[in-house]
Structure formats: structure tokens, C-alpha cells
């Protein structure tokens, strides 16, 4: 009896959260999927909305923009966060530094996007500063436009918001790293890179993968930042979906759902690939030992 209780305990503890995840995500996705597969007037089954989507250049341009924006901002955030954590983690033991890094996390994405506008738009503070320094004579000469078709402003916002997140994810790993490893490698004549590669990276890899996936899936699907910093064409996928969803009649709604379904499929695929890879790596390493 006691054994049975022991065995069932973790499931009981996890039941509420797993139920919530399944009910919300399962139900929501299923409903959205159904709507994307049914004719909006007759309710008949059809894949015509997907067909239209895949033959629509507007969709492909949006997909490309979303994908590259999400990938770039995730990669830069992870690398920057890693570098900052690695070289400065001693400082973060002190509370005031930690608090400082927390600051951007306390700022909602909407506000962060507005801040980027305030600083980097053509009439922003940086532009005024350059004018004062005499580097530009007119607003139109300002070289760092952020609201463009490459999504620079969007990427910048996410980096400002997400680097602290990466740092906070990595800090515990660094605190737990065994410094003896480093000493051993150094005695054997290994440089910093060697230390990082053999002592730190294996411990960091799973966290980095997870962080990267979280950031990527958030960035590709979030609405608020591209709403403020996006351009007329191409629009990020969530904006495209939102626009179709709210178009005057109901006819574009299945297409809006289809856009979201494709995004879902992509992120899930990527997540499984990344997790699978990191799992295999780990297995190989443990076997190697």
C-alpha cells in the first residue's frame, strides 16, 4: 500500500497542472484546427484554406520575416546572455546587480517596444544626439532606422527584454559548476575556450536549448511588439492572422486560424528537433563515459 502511494504520488502532484495544460492547449488548438479545416459558410471539410495559404506570396513573406526575426533575436539574446553571465556572474551574486538585470523583466513588452521607438526612431533621442554631435544635418540622414522590413526594431526590443531572461536561466548553472574542473583543465594547459568547451558547455547545453526554444516560440507568436514596430509589408505572422481574423466578414477567419496552425506546427517541429538533438548528445556523452 505504501509502495503504491509512493508510486502514484508524483502523478497526483502533477495532475492539476497537466490537466490545465492539456485542457487549454488541447482544446484551444483542436478548436482552431477544426475551424481552419471547415468552410466558413457551410461547415464542410476542406483544405482549401491551407492551399490558398501556401500559394499566397503574402504568407510566405510573412513566414520568412517571422522566422528570421525570431531566429535572430533568439540567437543574439542567448549568445549575449551567455557571454555576460560567463564573465560577470560573480557580480550577480550581489543583490543590487541582480536587481538591475531584473529591471527589463519588469517592463511589459508593449512598453519595451515603445521605448525602442522613443530611442531609435528617425526622430528619436539617438537621432537628436547625432544631430548635436554634427554627424547628421537632417532627420532623413539618420542611419539607424529600426522600423524596417528586416524587423530590426522588433529584434532590438526582444534582445533588451530577453537577455536578462537568459542570464537568470544560466546563473544557477554557473553557481553549481564545479570549479575543480576548471582548475584541472588549466593545470593540464587548457585555455579559457578549453575550459568553456569541456567543463561548462555540457552543463549549459540543456538549459541553453530550453531557453532558446522558449524564446523562439514566444517571439514567433507574439503580437504586441510587431504591432508597434512592424511595417506595412510583410507583416509578422501573428499580425497577419489577427488582421484576417478581424476582417469585416467571417470569410478570412479560417485562413487566420490556418496561419496560426502553421506557426504551431513549425515551433513544435523545431522544439522536438532541438530537444531530440540535445537528448541524443547527452546519451552519447554518458555512454562515452
Amino acid at each position: 500500500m505504501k509502495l503504491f502511494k509512493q508510486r502514484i504520488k508524483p502523478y497526483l502532484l502533477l495532475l492539476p497542472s497537466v490537466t490545465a495544460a492539456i485542457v487549454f492547449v488541447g482544446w484551444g488548438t483542436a478548436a482552431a484546427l477544426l475551424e481552419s479545416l471547415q468552410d466558413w459558410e457551410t461547415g464542410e471539410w476542406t483544405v482549401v484554406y491551407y492551399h490558398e495559404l501556401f500559394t499566397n506570396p503574402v504568407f510566405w513573406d510573412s513566414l520568412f520575416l517571422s522566422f528570421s526575426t525570431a531566429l535572430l533575436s533568439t540567437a543574439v539574446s542567448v549568445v549575449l546572455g551567455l557571454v555576460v553571465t560567463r564573465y560577470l556572474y560573480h557580480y550577480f551574486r550581489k543583490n543590487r546587480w541582480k536587481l538591475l538585470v531584473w529591471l527589463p523583466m519588469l517592463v511589459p513588452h508593449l512598453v519595451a517596444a515603445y521605448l525602442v521607438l522613443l530611442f531609435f526612431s528617425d526622430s528619436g533621442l539617438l537621432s537628436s544626439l547625432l544631430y548635436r554631435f554634427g554627424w547628421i544635418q537632417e532627420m532623413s540622414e539618420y542611419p539607424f532606422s529600426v522600423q524596417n522590413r528586416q524587423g530590426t526594431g522588433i529584434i532590438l526590443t526582444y534582445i533588451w527584454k530577453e537577455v536578462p531572461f537568459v542570464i537568470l536561466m544560466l546563473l544557477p548553472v554557473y553557481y553549481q559548476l564545479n570549479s575543480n574542473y576548471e582548475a584541472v583543465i588549466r593545470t593540464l594547459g587548457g585555455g579559457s575556450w578549453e575550459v568553456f568547451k569541456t567543463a561548462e558547455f555540457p552543463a549549459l547545453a540543456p538549459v541553453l536549448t530550453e531557453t532558446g526554444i522558449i524564446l523562439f516560440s514566444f517571439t514567433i507568436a507574439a503580437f504586441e511588439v510587431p504591432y508597434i514596430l512592424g511595417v506595412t509589408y510583410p507583416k509578422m505572422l501573428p499580425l497577419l492572422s489577427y488582421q484576417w481574423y478581424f476582417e469585416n466578414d467571417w470569410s478570412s477567419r479560417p485562413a487566420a486560424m490556418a496561419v496560426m496552425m502553421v506557426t504551431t506546427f513549425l515551433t513544435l517541429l523545431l522544439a522536438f528537433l532541438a530537444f531530440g538533438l540535445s537528448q541524443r548528445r547527452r546519451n552519447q556523452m554518458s555512454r562515452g563515459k
Partner: protein
Amino acid sequence: MFKNPWKKCGIGLVGIFLVAIFAGCTNSESGQTDEHSENSASSEALLEQPWEKTEAAAENSQVNLYMWGGDEGVNRYIDNWVAPRLKENYDITLKRYPMDITEVLQKLQTEKRANKETGVMDIIWINGENFKNAKENGLLWNSFSDKLPNFKKFIGQDRADLQTDFGTPVEGMEAPWGKVQYVFFYDAAHIKKPPQNFIELAQWVKENPGKFTYPEVQDFTGSGFMKHLLYDKMGRDVLENELYREELTNEHGDAVWQYLNDIQPYLWKNGENYPASLTELDRLYSQGEVWMTMGYNEARAERLIEDGTFPETTKSFIMEPGSIGNYHFLSIPFNSPNKAGAMVAINELLSPEAQLEKMQPSVWGENTPLSLEKLSEADQEKFKNIERGDSVLPSEQLEAAYLNEMDPAYTEWLKENWMSEVVQTTH
């Protein structure tokens, strides 16, 4: 039994969930059925019964007004002037909810599909293609405007300019709230003589690269700009009072796109990006990124100048072939839970006092749909004496240039093609 506190937590949690969901369901269901039976029984009667009865029914009730919330002056007018007045005179609590009209309509449509007979919105702010869409999809309640005393007294059913809204017959399904005309605004510190027509505008744009743009077609103001271009290319006769004709867009469409493509490289950001909304264009103008802005409501710059948002040197102008004007309306959704309250509130918004206050440049500044000659002499005097401000063109000039809205099908045509004909071509 509960040795482990976590288990307690887990069970308690599931309990809370169930209770919450259950409470949510029963709550709304019981509310729904009660109100529903009452609702459908009384809603027909509302249109038959004398006005006093409607007023009595509205007493001590709440009216939910859904409208776009991005203008601080408009919000303040509703919250600080209209709402207290309704409370005092009719014991009605007016509550304003900020929401875009497209989201409002989508919500109504979803509710209609889900058979939600008792909704949450009592009054919505609407016109043009949104009205057409709402009317065609049965999202509006009924013909009610000629039951409102102030409508009967100061506007009347026979006003020629209020028979249609962008070509869609109004049929009393909405009541006019304001009247605006489309004008352009410019900074006189940079521009000595504003352009008189589209040819001069193109010249000016080319001489001042980066200093002009217009909102994208999804935005009301953006499509408004393009509709003026349609008037210029297709002529007044075929657009003003006639239905959409495909051969017209086939014949003149290229000229429209050619004009927009021609100026595109000289627009703000070389035309790679257009403001998503009028407020965004206003922001660019207020920062001096561009030197012109535009929009419906000939008087809207006044308050923005006063607040320091627009430069003090802001003036307005109109171009050939004229300035499109329209009315915007208030309507009642099919599933409004408080139609009597909605009618009383709308009636109050059409009173000369409320309209007078709204027309003050520091409040909202837009024109009134009331027929001035039907007002009392004293009220007429008050309306005539409003100082609309230096940035507003003389009313004779505005009236002379007045153009009616065209069939919304033209806007649809613009929306369908602008992106591919103009924006995507810059790749």
C-alpha cells in the same frame, strides 16, 4: 487522511476550479435566460410605447458604450461630461469601453454564431463599410432613430444627406452623431503654400523627399486619402451618387496605382513602410518626421496644438476636386441587454447642449448633424458663435468643396489591390 499537504492543495485546487467554472456557467446561464425572456418581450414594445415609458424603463440602469479609445479628448467628453449628465437627468450609468469597431463587429458576429442572445454592448460607434457589414449580417437591432425625440425635433427623417451612409440605406438602424470633412494639415513653418491639387502634391512630395506619407489602406484615413484620388481620376459624377461599377475601376485603376507608385519612392522611409493608423501618422507629424497629416474632422488639430502635440504653426488645406465629408453614427447591437437605456442615452447625445459641447475646439471640435434651422434662436446663435480656431478652414470653403462618400465597394476594391499594386512592388 490528508497527511501530505500537497495532496490537500491538489484536491483543493481541483475543487476551486470546478466551483469557479460552475459558478461562471450557472451565473451567466441563469442571467441569460431571465434577461432573455424579458428582453425579447420588451424590445418590440420599446418601439411602440410612448417615450416616457422608455425613459422610465431606462432609469437606474447601466448602458455600455463601446468605442475606439485612442483620443483622450473624446474619452474625456464621454466620461466627464456626458456620463455625469446622464446620471443626473436619467439615473443612467454610462460606461465606456475602449475597443476598435472591427473588434466590436467580430465579437458580435462570434456571439451571433454562439447564439448569445444577451450580449454586453448597448451602444456602438459606427459608419461606412462597418455599418454595411453589420447591417447585412444582422448584427444591429432595429430601426429606432425616429423614435428619439431629439432626432425627430432637430434632424428629421427626411434629411436628404442622411438617407444613406456611404451608399447603404440607413433606415433608422443608426442615429447620426457627428459630421466631419476630410482635410489635410500642414506645418506652415516649412510649407509656405500648400498644394492645390494632386499634381501639385506629387510635385511637392518629390521636392521634399521623406516628408509626406499616408496611412495604409486598412486604416480609415488611409482609404480616405485614396478615395480622394479616385475622385480626381474618375470624376465626381460617376462616384458621388452611383453604385460601384467594375468597368470604372478597370478603366481608371491603373491611373490610380500609377500615381501612388510614382510618389512612393519619395515618401517617408522611401515608401517601404506606411503608418498603420492615423495616430501613427500624427505621431510622425508631431515629431517633424513628416510635414503633413490629414484626416476626417476639419477641426481636430485645435486641441492637439493646444496640448503641444502638434506645432503651433499647424494649418489646414483642401485640394481639388474637393473634400469628402461624412456622418458617423451610433447604433444598438442585436443583443444589447439594455435597449431602452441605449435609446435614452443616444437621444441625450443628440441634444443641442451635448452637441454644442462636443463642437468646442478644446473638446472634440467636430461639426453637428443637427439641422441648425430647427434649433431655437438662442441655440442657433450659440452654434454660430463657436470659435473653431485658426487651423480650421472657413465653413463656406468647406461646404463648397463637400463631396459625398462613394459606394463602399470602392473601398473594398482599394483594400484588395493596394497591397499588391503599390506596396509589394517595391521589393
